[in-house]
């Protein structure tokens, strides 16, 4: 049984010109201890589909799916309170902007202890001890002092470590990382990716890595889903995706990598589709 299994997910938003279909019939599944990368450009619906799983989309979004199973249980049928028990505990998420996703009004210690209080019901002393333990685990120096720091007193990389500490505080079974390193420097990106992969290997949690960076995919994923305009273009294990991409879109995406440049101009995705117009996927808008 898969840890998370989504069949035929459709997410629509109402706009002034009618319903816009951001995710159009996407099916994904993740197993225990598996690393799935969802890759696509902005507007491909990669974040929206995971936000739908987390229940973090605004009420105006229309979400339908044939099935949305987490450990065999249909998330769609859960009440709000039941869902809130699951989210943040068994399914946790890390966001792109570490500085923006922490609350600037509270110390990071308060924010991590809040999770421990609500989900695990630990008392004050146990919370403090666990928070220090978690900060040490994610490689924050002076963990004890760090608890009293506010997000603005820390660098972007440190804030992302705090976010990771909060996400793994309750030993989640599934971690969703939404572009966790896009806002960070290359050297810091390496550290954060190493940290996430190390934690994943140690705890055996499932990991969904949402990214637009083919380099990050190559360094982390077991299996890859390529999305474009709300549709799944291709699903393959990481090696076959890079070695022998099947869909035209994936081929175009790999050709657009500067390191794969041949000659003095890059191949662009649109140029690729101009060559074979019938291969261009249609926009995901519905009537």
């Amino acid at each position, binding site marked *: 049984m898969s840890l998370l299994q989504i069949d035929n997910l459709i997410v629509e938003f109402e706009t002034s010109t009618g319903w816009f279909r951001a995710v159009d019939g996407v099916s994904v599944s993740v197993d225990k201890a598996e690393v799935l990368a969802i890759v696509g*450009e902005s507007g491909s619906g990669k974040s929206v589909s995971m936000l739908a799983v987390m229940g973090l989309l605004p009420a105006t979004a229309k979400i339908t799916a044939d099935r949305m199973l987490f450990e065999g249980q249909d998330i769609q049928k859960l009440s709000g309170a039941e869902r809130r028990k699951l989210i943040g505990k068994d399914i946790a998420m890390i966001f792109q902007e570490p500085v923006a996703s922490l609350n600037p009004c509270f110390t990071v210690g308060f924010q991590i202890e809040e999770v421990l209080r609500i989900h695990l019901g630990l008392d004050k002393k146990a919370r403090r001890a666990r928070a220090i333990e978690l900060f040490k685990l994610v490689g924050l120096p002076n963990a004890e002092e760090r608890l009293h720091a506010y997000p603005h007193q820390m660098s972007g990389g440190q804030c992302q470590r705090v976010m990771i500490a909060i996400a793994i505080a309750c030993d989640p079974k599934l971690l969703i990382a939404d572009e966790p390193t896009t806002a960070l420097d*290359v050297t810091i*990106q390496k550290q954060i990716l190493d940290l996430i992969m190390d934690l994943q290997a140690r705890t055996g949690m499932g990991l969904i890595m949402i990214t637009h*960076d083919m380099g990050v995919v*190559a360094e982390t994923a077991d299996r890859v889903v390529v999305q474009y305009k709300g549709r799944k273009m291709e699903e393959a294990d990481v090696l076959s995706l890079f070695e022998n991409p099947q869909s035209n879109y994936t081929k175009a995406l790999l050709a657009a*990598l500067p390191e794969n440049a041949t000659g003095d101009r890059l191949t*662009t995705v*649109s140029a690729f589709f101009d060559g074979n117009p019938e291969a261009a996927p249609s926009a995901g808008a519905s009537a």
Partner: protein
Amino acid sequence: MSDIKTTDTMLEVRDIKRDYELPGGFMKPKKTLHAVKGVSFKLERGKTLAIVGESGCGKSTLARMITFIDEPTSGDLIIDGKKMDTRPGHLTSDMRQKVQIIFQNPYGSLNPRQKIGDVLGEPLAINTDLSAAERRNRATEMLIKVGLGPEHYNRYPHMFSGGQRQRIAIARALMMNPKLLVLDEPVSALDLSVQAQVLNLLADLQDEFNLTYVFISHDLSVVRYIADEVMVMYFGEAVEYGTRDEVFSNPKHEYTQTLFKATPKADVESIRARIAEKKAASAA
């Protein structure tokens, strides 16, 4: 000034420094932050110099000094064979026209209340006495040159995608026929496929107008593709400077080596090695 002889040196920077004073407080002395600690380089006309480094290393401060936004604390700036007098009030519009900058975030660098036509026409209105009709013609020509159309003239920035906005920012920078273009992370906010289009556009424009680029980036794969020369900055100092092939084939400084190691590798061999490593780890 005898050593500025070769006419094809577009930009020369000599031991340029920039200090910022941080305000002190009660019982706390003022501090000086050395953002750029003496950087020198020479760049030939029509070539591209890439400046690489992490955030806070002074690469954007350097860009701001080259484009006269910030005044250097000390050091010389020689553009097109002329030593620039960067003191406030001593800059002529002539000097300013030669150097233009393109910023990282095309969402922040365009005025949301200004139509694209006005964005492009404004430099002409300020610096030349062209008539409104001529300004309009020039702006429309430039729109076509950067891959947009005349129909975009009357639109507002919010009606464009990130890649299109970066094209507009490029068009605006080119309106005064500059010779030197400073690009401060011009593609890091863009998607991979759009990034390829913008990089191609920059290469086309460089060929057409014989432009000189100072290209600031933290993405080594982009740098390797676009640069002729590479400079690596670390804590305000240039720790590595050479041609692209020198730097990429034989990085000397420890930080450059760390940078290369940290860059994700997307080739099949590295993936295969990683998977094999993972299998070995799980079997053990």
